[in-house]
């Protein structure tokens, strides 16, 4: 296990929304300026705090979507229709609005640019967000390690970052395999993660990959079990649940 220097106390910082953009009908990327941001590793997350005028306050965790970039930080938020925090972030928050956040948090589910191993990323739904940070960080660092992404979504319209993934797949050693669980694109087939998918799209244990899986619980449990069954060492498989957060 990496014994990285873990910084001391995590103070709340004031982040200001610089801009935002839709990724899908329900996912929106928020770009913040965070003076004092200490930097982060791909795969880490932040705690976000909202405070109402009467002092009532709530917190949620969101994965960082962007590669390290000074005081800039991107979060991609999946809107939960009846949620308390996510609709505020995606529908109410406007450029110039401040909020409090602290981080980076999580020194386990991280990819480090100096790592020489090939990388397998397995994403279910919005679980792709911290994995996208890894894809971006690899490009930003000029790393040439080959990278494979297996990305399970309900329908093509639910795929976050699809145009960027296509561009990066052309420009670098990134392979993307989509699984469509409900509706496939014309001419395609629906399917779920399976031993056949793992055999066709993952690395073999002999390739000694680093493996990161992120998504809803059932997806993560299924994918991790399939990879262990395929002979991968459980200790190289890092998992993170990324359920929608209300």
């Amino acid at each position: 296990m990496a014994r990285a220097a873990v910084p001391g106390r995590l103070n709340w910082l004031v982040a200001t929304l610089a801009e935002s953009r839709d990724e899908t009908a329900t996912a929106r990327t928020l770009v913040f300026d965070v003076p004092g941001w200490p930097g982060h590793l791909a795969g880490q997350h932040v705690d976000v705090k909202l405070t109402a005028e009467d002092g009532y306050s709530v917190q949620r965790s969101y994965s960082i979507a962007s590669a390290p970039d000074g005081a800039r930080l991107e979060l991609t938020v999946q809107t939960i229709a009846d949620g308390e925090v996510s609709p505020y972030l995606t529908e109410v928050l406007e450029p110039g609005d401040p909020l409090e956040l602290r981080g980076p948090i999580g020194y386990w589910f991280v990819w480090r640019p100096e790592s020489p191993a090939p990388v397998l990323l397995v994403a279910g739904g919005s679980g792709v967000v911290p994995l996208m940070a890894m894809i971006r960080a690899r490009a930003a660092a000029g790393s040439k390690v080959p990278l494979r992404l297996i990305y399970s979504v309900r329908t093509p319209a639910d795929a976050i970052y699809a145009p960027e993934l296509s561009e990066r797949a052309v420009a670098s050693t990134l392979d993307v395999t989509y699984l469509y669980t409900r509706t496939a694109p014309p001419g395609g087939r629906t399917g779920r993660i399976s031993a056949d998918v793992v055999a066709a799209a993952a690395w073999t244990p002999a390739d000694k990959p680093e493996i990161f899986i992120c998504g809803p619980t059932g997806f993560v449990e299924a994918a991790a079990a399939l990879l262990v069954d395929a002979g991968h060492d459980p200790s190289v498989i890092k998992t993170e649940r990324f359920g929608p957060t209300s």
Partner: protein
Amino acid sequence: MSVISRGFSGRRRPGGDRLPPGQYLERGFPVLSAGPTPPVNTATWKFTITTEAGETARRWDWREFTALPAERITKDIHCVTKWSKFDTQWRGVSLDTLLDGVATNAGYVMARSYGGYTTNLPLADLRDGKAWVAYEYDGKPLPPEHGGPARLLVPHLYFWKSAKWVTGLDLMTHDRHGFWEELGYHDYGDPWREQRYQGD
């Protein structure tokens, strides 16, 4: 000094005073694990208490363990990732029963799990009816993804202290970091003092 979020009113709920600061109420039971769920077979399962001198003080196999006096436990639980769940129901063996008669001067404990997970706690937090090794949840055998066949249950601390797939306790004279504690999470983890990360 808090930053007021323009246009945010939030959703106050009844029972809000049962929620520690920064937590929200969850109806489901989310799963958080650092890696794959390890296969744990009750035919070979063992639970061991090791003293600070490295000697085995107690050891049970599954049959012996489940024959120990068990208690029904109903507690609120609080995960550091912000969700809390009220009135979770468990069945398991009190740590008072497991530690009964174990001679030790240790102040701390490292809980060890199948799959390699560890977490550190003060020994005092495992005594006096505050902690259990639980093997039933909601009247059924504890599912593997929730730590089955048996997990530590220390509901007054953030839930990462309630080690899944637990297989032993190492008594320690000096505190050491467990898995998440080494990675920046708090050594104690009191939800009511919001001790999420080192330095909180």
